């Protein structure tokens, strides 16, 4: 976290290499969050790029509270949520199924059968449960921080997480058929 603060200080003073370093430190986490929330590599890329672009624009007045990774992940989640809402309004596209496309711009760090099944199971969770699980697991946000940043009660966050994990367990054990 302190390394982030130092890089932020430098970036605020116009040091692009410091900003590049911040980007390098967090881009994969944010892509992971975006991909897991949206199920689409292309959309994850767009959202993460959008977040970094806006971050540049707001850098001069930006004040870091908490962890930068958590903050950026929340920004990704906000935008992902907007996109999912838009999708549901248009009712045009469903959550994209994972695929082994050679043109996929994102690659799984670990590829095995279990991970592939988990990908599929995660895609089947209600978006609000998926959001809490992904942000907690990949952005390292605590329940308290999630409640604060998402503007919901602590108990709601904990319930979403618990129900989400339970459902994943069921899906992975074949107890729920959709």
């Amino acid at each position, binding site marked *: 976290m302190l390394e982030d603060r130092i890089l932020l200080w430098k970036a605020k003073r116009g040091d692009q290499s410091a900003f590049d370093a911040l980007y390098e430190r967090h881009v994969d986490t944010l892509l992971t969050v975006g991909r897991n929330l949206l199920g689409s590599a292309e959309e994850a890329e767009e959202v993460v790029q959008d977040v970094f672009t806006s971050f*540049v624009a707001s850098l001069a007045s930006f*004040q870091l509270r908490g962890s930068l990774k958590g903050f950026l992940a929340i920004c990704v989640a906000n935008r992902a949520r907007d996109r999912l809402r838009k999708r549901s309004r248009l009712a045009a596209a469903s959550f994209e199924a994972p695929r082994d496309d050679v043109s996929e711009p994102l690659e799984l760090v670990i590829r095995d059968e279990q991970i592939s099944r988990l990908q599929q199971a995660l895609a089947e969770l209600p978006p609000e449960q998926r959001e809490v699980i992904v942000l907690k697991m990949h952005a390292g946000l605590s329940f308290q921080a999630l409640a604060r940043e998402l503007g919901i009660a602590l108990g709601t966050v904990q319930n979403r997480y618990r129900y989400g994990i339970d459902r994943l367990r069921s899906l992975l054990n074949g107890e729920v058929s959709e």
Partner: protein
Amino acid sequence: MRPQKEIETLLSRLQYRGTPQLRRRMQSHIAVAWRQGRSHIMNETGKRTSRAGTARFAGSRIMRNSMARFGVAAALLVAVLLGLHIFTGTSHVAWANVLAKVSAFDTYIFRSRVVETSGPRPDGFDFGSDSVSTVYYSEQYGRFSEDYRNDKLFARFYTLPDTNELVVICYSPNVYDRRELTASQIDEMRRNHPKRIVTKILEADYVELGEDRLEGKRVRGVELRDPSVMVDEGKETPSVDEFRARFWIDVETELPVWVEVEIAPAGSPKRQTVVWDQFQWGVPLAASLFEPNIPADFESIGSERTGRAYSDSTPRNEAEEAFLDNTQAEPYLSDFDHLTLPDVSGVTLLGVDTSVPQAELRLRDHEEVWQAQDAFRAKWPRYDDVRDQLAQELQAQLGIGQMTVEQLVGLGLALRERFWELRGCLSDTSYPYGYAARLVTAKAHELAPDDPAVTDQYVESIITCEATATFENQTSERTINPVYPGLLTQLRAAQFEQLKDKVKNGYVPTWKDFVRAIDLITLFDSYCEDQAAALEVTRWLITRAPIAGWTYYSDTSLPEREEAYAAGDGYRGGLFMHGPDAFPEEFRYARRLFSLQGPREHAQKLTPRHLRHLKGW
């Protein structure tokens, strides 16, 4: 059934990374955003309607709202609970050792960085400042700091309690100042340094931030969110929306390596962040380090002789009290505040479309503000080139040829307000209104040339649009705006002659007469290079001080001026007017005569520096 832990482990492995092509593509987009967002203001004023310029960080709204919801009370409760937990022994750091070690040091060196921001404002500005300094602190000798701007030494500050002196040596331009330290300045020096902040945090119910890494070292941090802890007994805790004081120690040495304080005043988007790091605890500091070494060719800028502090003035004598009585401590209220101003929002001049959105501007420090103003003004037409067209348009739309003096002045005031609404000299669309104000107040002045209040309106309209000179920096000569040694000097000189005649007939000069005269002295000295004329006006003011109530200046800067002008020298310094705080956005109003009022809201906040206490500032 898989246990929850196994699911979580699996989830943590569900990570993606971008392919090299994706990373290159994204970095290229972000590099473009960087150039657009960070490029020098001179290159982007007036044409920044890009996404980078207008985008808002999506997360910030949510963060701010949620922080507000979280609330200080909740934070304190958490702090107390966690603090108790820490004291029961889960911490790997003996914080008592830290306290003992820090308390033992009488000397240390550190780097200080301060960032202030106004926060994004409705008018599209985000003003701020950003300073870096190296500080040498000694409980025996005081505080010595070297301030840097753009990595160059800008000034040295010596705060010396033994001799009760504050010495400032500035390197751009080469000037210095010595003044008496006030009790509050000594108090400020003793309170506002990392050792005290660290001590205060450790003595309070702090929250542990856990372990982290800083430049390869293992560090542990603590945080405090209760501002009242920092306030001395008997003093009021400032009202804040957010306050955080944190520090981290090197786990090996148990000494602080990073201290930071963030403050957001209540109800304001402003924010100040102070970071202290690069500590050298306990390093010996010689007495000679705290002895100001003023180069022989540096020029004094003010209060050295009398040593009276600027901010420690109270009415000390009958004349000063009379001055307060005469002005009701509101010396800058307009003579025309009673006027109902015409609505000029529908007036279109010179074909300028005011509905075009203005670029958002993030301006740090006076240099950026002034450079941006110069860049905008360079794009404006000259007043003389559009005056005739403006006169025709104003006649056609408002019938100015048939207006009385009062109507013209009222229209001038309204047009100036419109100029400031459209962002003054940081705008592509404001200038027709500033120029129009100048034109109509010139007409009023033609009709009432002996009325000093009307002349003031004319002067105000001119300086609203015109800076004294283009931005000066260390590498280029300044170019003086000819309207200052020309028309403005004529107007203020004529007022002075009128004043002298009135005084001969028993008139008692007022504070406004004093301000007009100071303008004239400055014009003679700085823009006409006529020190003899400046000396004459200065001596006149000194002799009138006892009856007119500007004794504060007759005790301080007026005799210094007299001496400088008598020697044929110039004089730096002047009449400092202040609002409740001197935030960098005030630089918008600089580079004009001391009399500048600016928009009404600004004018109502102005008061001479030595009378700020009358407003509780």
